[in-house]
């Protein structure tokens, strides 16, 4: 999307959004109604027990599903009103996804995996490769660009998936448990990259059940039975010491 950003307008808005499945007595409401905004540059975590609607919320934010109630607005545009090609283009250009199943193509190198979405979008090969290299560099993997996914560690594959999600001009990253079963030091490295991307102006929604990962977020939304029950937003309050670090 090329709409100019207006000050104060949220990047993403959930306007009384609900998502139900099935009809009549078998109808199930997986989410909603929920209402919240995500501003540019924010890292928002979503937490809640299994079945509370976290993944549904992410699918709606990423235009992978349509709401059955309310509207999901990305920079003011109602995702449900987009034509199928426009929605496909949006998913390719504006939104990056990191799911538990990373979906890296085993026959392509790290660099080719990251470059592919740009190539599919018509970017010239040399330019796409250059952007992909920069994205890999941003997650500290420039030296492994020529490796195939099978020759990378779990943490490295995860970072390739993040580089792919953030390559090009995309500004919204949707991550569903992106650290999977990584050990804590590697998981923290992934979170640091995500945080750095948001500090650099990108925006991310992170679904996680790991409180220490949610701790990296600016805001944490708590979902229960499909509705938002609370929100934690860290102030600049003091702890441990009065001063800001040593």
């Amino acid at each position, binding site marked *: 999307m090329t709409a100019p950003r207006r000050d104060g307008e949220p990047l993403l808005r959930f306007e009384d959004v609900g998502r139900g499945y099935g009809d009549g007595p078998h109808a199930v409401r997986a989410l909603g109604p929920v209402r919240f905004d995500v501003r540019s540059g924010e890292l928002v975590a979503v937490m809640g027990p299994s079945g509370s609607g976290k993944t549904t919320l992410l699918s709606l934010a990423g235009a992978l599903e349509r709401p059955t109630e309310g509207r999901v607005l990305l920079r003011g545009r109602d995702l449900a009103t987009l034509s199928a090609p426009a929605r496909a283009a949006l998913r390719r250009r504006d939104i990056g996804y990191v799911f538990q199943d990373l979906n890296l193509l085993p026959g392509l190198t790290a660099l080719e995996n990251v470059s592919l979405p740009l190539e599919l979008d018509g970017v010239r090969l040399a330019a796409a490769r250059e952007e992909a290299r920069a994205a890999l560099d941003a997650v500290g993997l420039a030296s492994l660009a020529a490796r195939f996914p099978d020759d990378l560690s779990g943490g490295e594959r995860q970072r390739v998936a993040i580089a792919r999600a953030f390559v090009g001009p995309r500004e919204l990253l949707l991550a569903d448990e992106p650290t999977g079963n990584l050990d804590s030091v590697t998981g923290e490295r992934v979170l640091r990259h995500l*945080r750095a991307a948001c500090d650099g102006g990108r925006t991310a929604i992170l679904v996680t059940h790991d*409180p220490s990962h949610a701790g990296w977020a600016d805001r944490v939304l708590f979902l229960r039975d499909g509705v938002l029950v609370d929100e*934690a937003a860290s102030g600049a309050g003091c702890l*441990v010491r009065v001063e800001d670090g040593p």
Partner: protein
Amino acid sequence: MSIPLSLLAILSDRSAHGYGLKSRFEESTAGAWPLNVGQVYTTLRRLERDGLVLPEEGEGGARQTWRITDAGRTALEEWFGTPVEDDPPARDELSIKVLLAVAADAVDVTDIVQRQRVATMERLQRYTRRKRAADPERELPWTLLLDALILKAEAELKWLDLCEARLAERGR
């Protein structure tokens, strides 16, 4: 926290005067537990009485330096060699509050749990923000302390989830 043993740990490296001990203790523990210098002098006199430290010759008063004795080293080795036991557990206000809320029928435990969850998550976010700003190589004690605080907050959040799930099972 054992102040006497902490002072012995610092003296095991090299001799120090009272204020130096205070500074090195705070530096090693990321400044999380400030020591009162008066407390340091009182403790040093107790350690001297017990034969664990000795005043060094030379200047007296505030410049008086202290060194660890062989008996002091033995006491210190014993301390480092003994795992920390939290059994019976130290008094923990959150556990006590939630258990008493469960016992008191008129109180909405879910509400207490939810409020605490938000507060603990906000604390965890603040710790994480400090960790982001810390350089783990140059500020190792500070980073390790933040790791400990983050994991404690995480344990608290997981416990709150479990409380809620168990109460829901019992229909409360």
